[in-house]
């Protein structure tokens, strides 16, 4: 009850606040001090409503209020505390509430920093809230269940992982922050303030981009460490859906910086601010509406959400474009750049390349829907994304290498010399490291050299600027991180080696430059760890991939041995206990000697069950071991459902069963298996992979995030 009331209050007050802010922005009169700002008061109520609903959902989750469908569906009594918290965003409704909460709080931060354009900005922020809250009214997390279940269904085991706990909130902070550039763009167009007012959006754009990027990296880390297929990016539609707005946001941030410094790219920045947020809505549409349900690993089934999200998407797209179109004649046009080799050109190329990449990824992602319109639907394979993006990112790297030298005003020679000195050390060093890690082909080494050059140059400028003030070094640090990321991506994507090997206990197998010996199973805390001894030259260590039960499903978890040069990735595929069994055929009246026993086949005994057409065929056997003579009747039941074998256990523990019969010829084929477990043949099959330079990739993402953080901090505090 209280949760739903919170949502309703938030909705109504968002509507009223939005209308009042709109009127404030519309009126030419300056707001007089002393008149109560009702728009602000309603906004307080709005934040209060969302907060109440959120706090209550947390409370309901932590106190196991299974009368609410959402709590029932995503938690149970045995769920540990940290996952009870993260269960908040395990499902549709919770994530929308979290998103709305973050936007509401962002509004407060926005109010502290922006005064002039605020009344024009708030209506658009609140419009977004209206959509989110309307959804929450229609599909509430507080849907009551009758009768109240005693225990919940539990959390999806794949979500019970620290990476998956923080990934969604970080992404939603990014989404919330990227609402601000959209609102600023539309407000700036409305108020014709795209030079000074709109420029104040830069820190917000940077922060939103930072969080969205960090969220994407976290998702990749989870995929790599938990899912077991040895990769971090699958070009799956849901992954692409968050990548596309991130690419346009990257362009937006760079364009805004150029606008700040030289007043360039005004039109592009406005459009990019609008389109990035619209693409975020599209991302939500693609992942939740069921349109991609049959085409993606992650996409979820169709719900009533589809039409709703389509309206959300189209609404914001039309509003944004309408404002742009309205003011298009007033916007400053871009004059052509005076020379090809200027910083301005490098920015232009960056923007164009990033938007092209975004468009291509969007095209590939939507390919099933698009081809479906004209014929039978078809998806694109990964090769499309890799083939088309490779030349684009090649171009970006050329720009990344050259751009620092192209100052807006003048070049300085000292940096060039410093770069050369640094290059003399780092380039050979980097090439040796790369070669040792596995980059052995000539084209690969050439590409590595190019990445290293970009790294060296940006490192040069980072060091130089760091000395004058850490605040201004963020961009270069981020680019250093980017270069490292690409070196890591080159290594781990193009030079990975993998092999599937089957291991028997104690028998070493050589693969991909290592020696693997399966040692056996170690049971600990309800998990079964399959211990594998890995020998790499002189180094020996024990890897422990495991297979564990989550409810009634078996989940596989890889083990990763991280070193500087490469990761060794071991993914459990299958575990079988093969029986040592012997097959033999006996004719009626025949005796066979096996081991120290004699098997005499007397004949078949047929039984028909009274109530059905199930026939049971037994093979009557006399088995003599030394002086002991016993009769056994293994049987085969044949019915409409199939065949069921009914084995017998002999005196020594062995198991005898019928494998096949030929009644006409009087023959029976029997299987004799050892009942002794120690005789059983364990076979553990794993896929082992080397992933060169993953550690460099990880380091790169960390530096990229830190560098961006420094840059955003600078913009907020300037």
């Amino acid at each position: 009850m209280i949760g739903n009331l919170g949502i309703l209050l938030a909705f109504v007050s968002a509507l009223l606040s939005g209308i009042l802010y709109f009127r404030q922005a519309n009126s030419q009169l300056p707001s007089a001090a002393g008149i109560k700002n009702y728009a602000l008061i309603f906004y307080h109520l709005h934040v209060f409503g969302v907060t109440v609903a959120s706090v209550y959902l947390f409370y309901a989750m932590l106190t196991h209020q299974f009368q609410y469908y959402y709590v029932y569906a995503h938690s149970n009594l045995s769920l540990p505390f940290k996952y009870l918290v993260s269960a908040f965003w395990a499902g549709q409704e919770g994530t929308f509430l979290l998103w709305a909460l973050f936007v509401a709080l962002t509004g407060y931060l926005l109010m502290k920093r922006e005064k002039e354009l605020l009344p024009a900005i708030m209506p658009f922020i609140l419009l977004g809230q209206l959509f989110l809250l309307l959804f929450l009214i229609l599909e509430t997390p507080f849907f009551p269940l009758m009768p109240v279940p005693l225990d919940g269904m539990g959390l999806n085991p794949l979500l019970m992982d620290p990476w998956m706990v923080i990934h969604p909130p970080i992404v939603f902070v990014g989404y919330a922050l990227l609402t601000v550039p959209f609102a600023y763009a539309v407000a700036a167009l409305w108020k014709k303030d795209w030079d000074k007012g709109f420029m104040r959006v830069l820190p917000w754009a940077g922060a939103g981009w930072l969080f969205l990027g960090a969220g994407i990296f976290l998702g990749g880390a989870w995929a790599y460490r938990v899912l077991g297929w040895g990769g971090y990016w699958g070009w799956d539609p849901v992954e692409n859906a968050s990548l596309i707005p991130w690419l346009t946001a990257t362009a937006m941030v760079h364009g805004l910086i150029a606008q700040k410094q030289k007043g360039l790219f005004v039109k592009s920045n406005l459009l990019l601010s609008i389109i990035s947020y619209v693409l975020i809505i599209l991302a939500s549409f693609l992942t939740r509406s069921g349109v991609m349900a049959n085409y993606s690993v992650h996409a979820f089934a169709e719900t009533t959400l589809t039409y709703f999200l389509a309206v959300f998407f189209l609404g914001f797209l039309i509003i944004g474009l309408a404002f742009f179109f309205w003011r298009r004649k007033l916007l400053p046009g871009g004059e052509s750049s005076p020379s090809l080799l200027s910083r301005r050109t490098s920015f232009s190329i960056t923007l164009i390349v990033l938007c092209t990449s975004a468009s291509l990824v969007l095209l590939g992602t939507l390919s099933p829907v698009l081809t479906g319109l004209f014929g039978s639907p078809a998806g694109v394979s990964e090769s499309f994304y890799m083939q088309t993006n490779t030349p684009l990112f090649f171009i970006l790297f050329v720009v990344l290498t050259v751009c620092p030298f192209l100052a807006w005003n003048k070049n300085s020679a000292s940096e060039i010399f410093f770069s050369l000195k640094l290059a003399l050390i780092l380039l050979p060093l980097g090439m040796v490291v790369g070669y040792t890690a596995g980059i052995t082909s000539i084209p690969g080494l050439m590409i590595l050299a190019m990445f290293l050059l970009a790294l060296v140059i940006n490192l040069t400028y980072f060091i130089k600027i760091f000395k004058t003030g850490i605040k201004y070094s963020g961009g270069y640090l981020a680019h250093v991180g980017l270069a490292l990321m690409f070196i890591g991506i080159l290594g781990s994507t193009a030079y990975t080696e993998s092999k599937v090997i089957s291991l028997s206990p104690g028998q070493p197998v050589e693969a991909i430059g290592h020696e693997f010996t399966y040692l056996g199973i170690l049971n600990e805390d309800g998990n079964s760890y399959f211990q594998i001894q890995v020998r790499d030259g002189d180094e020996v260590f024990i890897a422990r991939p495991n297979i564990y039960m989550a409810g009634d499903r078996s989940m596989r978890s890889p083990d990763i041995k991280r070193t500087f040069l490469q990761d060794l990735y071991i993914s459990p595929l299958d575990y079988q206990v093969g029986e040592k069994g012997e097959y033999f055929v006996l004719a009626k009246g025949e005796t066979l000697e096996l081991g120290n026993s004699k098997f005499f086949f007397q004949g078949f005994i047929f039984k028909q069950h009274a109530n059905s057409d199930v026939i049971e065929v037994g093979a009557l056997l006399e088995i003599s071991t030394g002086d002991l003579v016993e009769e056994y009747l293994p049987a085969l039941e044949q019915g409409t459902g199939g065949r069921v074998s009914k084995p017998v256990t002999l005196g020594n523990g062995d198991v005898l069963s019928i494998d096949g019969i030929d009644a006409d010829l009087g023959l029976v084929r029997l299987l004799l298996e050892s009942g002794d477990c120690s005789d059983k043949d364990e076979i553990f099959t794993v896929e082992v992979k080397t992933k060169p330079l993953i550690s460099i990739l990880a380091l790169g993402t960390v530096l990229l995030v830190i560098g961006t953080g420094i840059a955003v901090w600078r913009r907020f505090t300037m």
Partner: protein
Amino acid sequence: MKNKWIIGVIVILIFGGFAFYSFSSSLSPYVTLDEAAKASGQVQVLGTIVEEKEISFDLETDRLEFYLVDEEGTVTAVSYSGPRPDNLEESENIVIVGQYINGIFHAEKLLVKCPSKYETVKEDNL
């Protein structure tokens, strides 16, 4: 000035052509098993795992083997090399990506749906 435009257009045309070629050659259509048998390139088929038949791992080929039934009801044997997706058994339906070789569908990729995360199953509970 004009040169820049000409260069730009040429670059766009070349890249556009390349992108188009890459797009069409990487398309793998969604088909039924019948169509897949006749197709030459890689295809994707949506279906459900046949529960009555076992999902087994063949030690000699190091491939996962199971049976799939598609929307038309056709059943086929599937052989998959690659890490086994965690929720294979209880996914509602899966997509196999690959092609037929000698009567068996060799799947390079398996796309398994995350069951029920964002589904409204509320109706069942009413």
